């Protein structure tokens, strides 16, 4: 099977965004992204998708919950 750099880039895009690649892997992905419009477009989409998903999933704690949690602390005396 021949080596397909775009397929390789597609495989590493998530760990790349998770900052879990080694420096060498990261450099390889960055070099590919610099020279490949096809992957760069998709990379930019992944970045905006992550931001969008994070916002959608984010639900702050109800204000009174912290007080209820504090009430569970062990009394000092």
């Amino acid at each position: 099977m021949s080596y397909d750099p775009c397929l390789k880039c597609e495989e590493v895009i998530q760990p790349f965004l998770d900052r879990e690649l080694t420096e060498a892997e990261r450099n390889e992905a960055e070099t590919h992204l610099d020279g490949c419009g096809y992957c760069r477009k998709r990379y930019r989409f992944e970045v905006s998708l992550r931001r969008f998903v994070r916002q959608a999933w984010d639900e702050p704690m109800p204000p009174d919950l912290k007080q209820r949690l504090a009430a569970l602390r062990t009394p000092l005396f």
Partner: protein
Amino acid sequence: MTQIEPEADPRRIAEEARDRVRFEEEVLELADQVYRVARRLVGSKEEAEDLVQETYARAFRSWRSFTPGTNLRAWLFRILTNLNIDRGRRQQRTPDTQPIEEGDYFLYNRLEETAPEEDTERIVERLSQDSVVYALSAVPHDFRDVIVLVDIGDFSYQDAAQILDIPIGTVMSRLHRGRRILKRELAEEAVAER
């Protein structure tokens, strides 16, 4: 300066009380993060609140099992995920063998098919926030736990592995498959809404 040496026992008790108070304060500072993760692990706000309260009750009770200087966040989230599993919300294991055909670019490709000229950054706006929440609930629990810890909890793969007590390779494969399932759900939603 001369100090009256207190009896050994009262001093130890006082030190312990101080350590415990400090521990409890540090744990409480993490409450917002714990809730945000819990909220996406379970189906409703009420369940998330219950789960967080159980987590804190257990954390306060078992504070002695925390080793100072180690990762408090990971320790606390481990209690959370264990309690969530104990709640019996999953009896059956998710098979890891079901094939997923779609690659990582799948969602982009599907969305782009319908409006090729659009800006890359704008394409994502065709998804709705509700559909993103719904899509996560369609991801099997084993995969969802990992996605939530990494994407909402901001944990590294290594920390997620420690919290869930699974090998790091399993974290990576679940994340990989879970995100693809998520994208497949989002693509179906987006196409259905047209």
